[in-house]
């Protein structure tokens, strides 16, 4: 039992009597942790900003105009197709989704705020759930739901009136909407969102000169709720065969097609991986130097009968403790620092991505230390005699 505990005894004694040195490495690991967690949180925040509305949709499939390259802004489906979509076997409900960018005019000289104005059909797929206030109730009311990010940035409250400036034809028009509900975060294309009934959207959206006088109504995509989500592939084939000029995809596929989303996520993941690699090198370098400085000492330990497993286990204990301490300090620092960021900074500490980052960080210590452990095990006890 004593021999089993000996690696812990040796490792802890050495760490305690060389606190400064080990703390310094832990602080380096803490800085790497801070960086990795922020890169992960930034990736999550930027990803969320791009995909949030789509990811939270209460729908199973999305219908795009065929050959629109799955670009929501490029997809235009005549409103007359909604009936055709509803008639396809297996489709339980359909909601049209129409998007455009508008500018909110804020009071008291505050800077205006660009938002995504999303036209949805009350009570149908596409309309987000409110966390305060009420859902949209009519197709034409000047009611609006606002994303909580709009609230955080503008301090607009439930019941307030929004003023929007849009360009229709060649002139600027001002419209007012009443905030009747607040949704959770629902960003789309990295800007916060407001939701209005489809017909309100169609009336107040920015329009070209031709669109001002055109009676035709279009939406960008349709959100489909299926009777049985397991039949998604069959329903997709039916829609593409029966409803002219459409392309149907799942929500994950639609998210991948958001412009720049995949490239952005790949870039951020690459940054994270490289930061972890730097961590491996830093930790590996430190422990290797430490072992090189202790060659004679390890030789003495082995000469007096300390086995290789004990020497290796003591190194592993030190590496794990140093790493855990560093990751703990870094994680706490990241948490405290994140509280000081304004809501406009796209930093989101998502449990899953943070857990993956922390697990990766906890692994870099042992991985970085492998070389030094191998070196320590190979030190000959004869080194104690200077041979």
């Amino acid at each position: 039992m004593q021999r089993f505990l000996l690696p812990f005894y040796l490792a802890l004694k050495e760490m305690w009597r060389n606190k400064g040195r080990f703390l310094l490495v832990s602080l380096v690991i803490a800085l790497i942790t801070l960086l990795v967690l922020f890169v992960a949180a930034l990736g999550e925040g930027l990803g969320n900003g791009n995909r949030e509305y789509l990811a939270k949709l209460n729908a199973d499939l999305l219908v795009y105009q065929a050959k629109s390259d799955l670009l929501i802004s490029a997809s235009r489906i005549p409103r007359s197709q909604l009936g055709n979509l509803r008639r396809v076997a297996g489709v339980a409900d359909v909601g049209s989704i129409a998007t455009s960018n508008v500018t909110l005019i804020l009071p008291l000289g505050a800077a205006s705020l660009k938002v995504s104005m999303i036209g949805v059909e009350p009570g149908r797929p596409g309309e987000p759930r409110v966390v305060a206030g009420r859902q949209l109730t009519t197709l034409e009311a000047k009611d609006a739901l606002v994303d909580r990010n709009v609230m955080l940035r503008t301090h607009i409250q439930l019941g307030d009136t929004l003023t929007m400036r849009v360009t229709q034809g060649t002139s600027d028009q001002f419209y007012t909407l009443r905030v009747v509900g607040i949704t959770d975060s629902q960003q789309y294309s990295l800007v916060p969102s407001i939701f209005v009934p489809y017909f309100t959207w169609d009336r107040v959206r920015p329009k070209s000169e031709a669109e001002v006088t055109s009676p035709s109504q279009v939406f960008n995509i349709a959100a489909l709720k299926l009777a049985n989500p397991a039949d998604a592939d069959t329903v997709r084939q039916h829609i593409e065969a029966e409803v002219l000029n459409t392309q149907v995809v799942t929500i994950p596929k639609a998210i991948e097609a958001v412009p720049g989303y995949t490239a952005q996520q790949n870039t951020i993941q690459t940054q994270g991986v490289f930061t972890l690699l730097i961590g491996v090198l830093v930790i590996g370098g430190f422990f290797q130097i430490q072992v090189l400085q202790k060659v004679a000492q390890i030789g003495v330990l082995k000469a007096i009968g300390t086995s290789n497993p004990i020497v290796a286990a003591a190194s592993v204990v030190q590496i794990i403790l140093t790493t855990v301490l560093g990751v703990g300090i870094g994680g706490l620092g990241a948490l405290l620092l994140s509280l000081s960021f304004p809501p406009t900074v796209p930093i989101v500490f998502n449990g899953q991505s943070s857990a993956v980052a922390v697990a990766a960080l906890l692994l870099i210590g042992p991985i970085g230390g492998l070389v030094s452990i191998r070196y320590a095990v190979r030190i000959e006890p004869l080194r104690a005699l200077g041979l």
Partner: protein
Amino acid sequence: MSTVALETHSITKTYKSDLGVIQAVDDVSFQVRAGEFVALVGPSGSGKTTMLSILAALLSPTAGQIWLDGQDLSKLNEAQRVRLRRDKIGFTFQANNLVPYLSALENVELMLRLNNRMDKAGHLRAQELLARLGLGERMRNLPSQMSGGQQQRVAIARALIHNPSLVLADEPTASLDTERAFQVVKTFASLIHENQRAGIMVTHDLRMVEFVDRVLQMRDGKLVKTYTTRNEILDLARGNHHKAHPLDHGV
């Protein structure tokens, strides 16, 4: 008459190098009894450190046998050698003797922990041994807070605390001034005798053999002479031994 603790028979160690085969130890045989303190002397390159490494189960001989407490060392595998060093051998080295992050007491107790024998009685015995070596006030000190002589005395305590059959000392006085060197060797000798352990000290400083019971002199890997009588040993220690080879007086 005490029992034979260590016996070597025709120990040979050869190395291959670019210059050919080097005979580091050549057909060396001797015995050491329990309670006997033996010095292994010789000039630099005479093979005494290689011999010590073989006795400590750190090196395997090319030929020959070694028996420690009746156990043939040449037949042990690596794990058994580690166990033998831990259980049956006590060791002091020339330098870097102690674990720097353990106090004097912890360094001594380390041998008990390695042997699963650390308990209250062991703790008290380690304290007594250190006090006996004049380190009662230094038990909590780290090696860096002690002089070279004090560190050597801690190493002696560590080498003896687990009651090994054989105690080996590699140039224990190399980094000490004369007065401290005599003190360390004298203490070492008295503990060897008192505890009835077999002790072997490698030294190039012939003055230090004054406290040993027998001197084995090596040259070019061979055991060339054995000094057994008190007068012979004292003569050697005082530099009066006319028959000694000029090179045998150390470096």
